[in-house]
């Protein structure tokens, strides 16, 4: 009996279990998934929880519901991957594998920045990238009386790079609806050179910041959070004051990657960006946020990767050359507040542009434009996530490789 071992039962790991159980003959292959947590969170919903747009029960289900029959599901902490021996050490047992899929994701590490998780943590400093953080922030916002709201990115790369911007847009709507927008100053602080960094997006979307009166502070690389005086400081000496700091802490790969000596300097696993095979071990494949691919860390990317990884694992088993086909395709809704959203579709080489999606020239979704239909798409996505995406069902009309049809490229 050969063994396929999947580490992590988040979006990517769960999808791969569902993909591979359909393809690998049960008499030859045993598939096992390991994760230490029993709850599967709908992470895109963490953005909505702080504004009371989703309830906590909308965001969590038991992980076992999504692990297909016939797959072993082990709820234990992973201590170390011993790649030279094809073994994975768990808290009280050791598993061996023929093929390993690493899907251990990325996590936030506020302790990486001086003062971030100090005495103000979850009092006037919050994250919304964790269930606990989003919930604590919701409770804070229910009674907050206004002041300086600073939405902040510590450093790149982060999971779902547009989420902080969406947070700022939704905050604008939230305070308007509460009749207290005048009491809130919203500032968006980024280590990049702007809220938008690609030429097309900047040209098309910069008006949103002005319209929503969101100030930008750019090229800001945080050195520390001063809990006493409520301000953040940049290495260059610049300071931004806050009454409420909503930050995206440093994102790193899981500690197990570091303990196993398999990561880069941010604990992401060096991975072939087109085939998804690890660069160091031919029987290790990496999917989702755990890899160092220059693609966005997002569920849609993991979904597109899964289709290609399934095929490459089958090719690897058959001794055939791997397909080098993953193009970095990502497809993301961006909430802009007031019941509208944008949709972007892009890959390694093409930046987001205007056009229609998924049907060229028809839509119904519009790329890089604020519409109500896009917002409906984002809300519908929760159903798609639970019922299709993580179960590895192909989503009709949306292909793993990006389509260039119906899009307004300059050349």
């Amino acid at each position, binding site marked *: 009996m050969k063994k396929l071992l999947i580490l992590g039962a988040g979006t990517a790991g769960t999808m791969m279990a569902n993909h591979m159980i359909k393809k690998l003959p049960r008499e030859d292959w045993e598939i096992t998934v390991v994760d230490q947590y029993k709850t599967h969170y709908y992470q895109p919903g963490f953005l909505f929880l702080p504004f009371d747009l989703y309830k906590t029960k909308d965001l969590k289900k038991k992980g076992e519901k999504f692990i297909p029959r016939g797959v072993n599901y082990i709820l234990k902490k992973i201590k170390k991957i011993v790649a030279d021996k094809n073994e994975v050490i768990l808290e009280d047992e050791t598993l061996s594998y023929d093929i390993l899929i690493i899907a251990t994701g990325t996590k936030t590490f506020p302790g990486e920045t001086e003062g971030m998780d100090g005495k103000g943590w979850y009092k006037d400093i919050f994250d919304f990238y964790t269930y606990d953080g989003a919930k604590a922030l919701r409770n804070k916002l229910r009674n907050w009386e206004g002041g300086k709201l600073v939405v902040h990115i510590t450093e*790149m790369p982060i999971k779902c790079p547009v989420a902080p911007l969406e947070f700022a847009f939704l905050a604008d709507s939230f305070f308007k609806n509460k009749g207290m927008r005048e009491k809130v100053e919203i500032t968006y602080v980024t280590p990049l*050179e702007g809220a*938008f960094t690609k030429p097309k997006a900047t040209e098309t979307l910069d008006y949103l910041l002005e319209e929503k009166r969101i100030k930008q502070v750019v090229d800001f690389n945080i050195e520390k959070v001063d809990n006493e005086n409520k301000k953040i400081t940049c290495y*260059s000496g610049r300071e931004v004051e806050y009454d409420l700091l909503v930050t995206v802490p440093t994102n790193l790969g899981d500690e197990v990657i570091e303990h196993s000596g398999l990561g*880069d*300097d941010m604990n992401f696993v060096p991975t072939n960006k087109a085939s998804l095979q690890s660069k160091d071990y031919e029987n290790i494949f990496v999917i989702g946020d755990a890899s160092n691919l220059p693609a966005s860390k997002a569920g849609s990317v993991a979904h597109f990767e899964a289709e290609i990884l399934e095929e490459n694992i089958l090719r690897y088993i058959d001794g055939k050359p791997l397909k080098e086909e993953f193009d970095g395709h990502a497809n993301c809704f961006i909430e802009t507040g007031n019941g509208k959203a944008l949709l972007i579709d892009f890959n390694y080489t093409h930046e987001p542009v205007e056009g229609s999606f998924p049907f060229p020239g028809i839509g119904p979704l519009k790329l890089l434009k604020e519409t109500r239909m896009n917002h409906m798409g984002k809300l519908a996505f929760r159903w798609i996530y639970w019922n299709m995406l993580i179960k590895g069902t192909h989503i009709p009309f949306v292909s793993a490789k990006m389509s260039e049809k119906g899009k307004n490229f300059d050349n």
Partner: protein
Amino acid sequence: MESVDLNEEGYLTNFSQWNKEIGNVIATENEITMTDRHWEVVEYLQDKHVKEEALSIRGIKKSGIINIKEFYALFPGGPLKVSTKIAGIPKPKSCI
């Protein structure tokens, strides 16, 4: 000096056209006088670029090449922005 292809922001679009002389010209345009320390950082950035690894302030901090205060002192303003320009590699970007 041979000509190189630049984008509208002055970044090289083809790293293979880079050489030290070009790096020096870009540095001078950005009011930076290159020292051995500057070149050490530039070489590190180019190495990361060739390996297709993402650049970040943290990566630089962990690299052991330089601490962040010094990085700011060598390349004032937006150090990653300026140093990548001199190194002839693309500026770090977000997805949108």
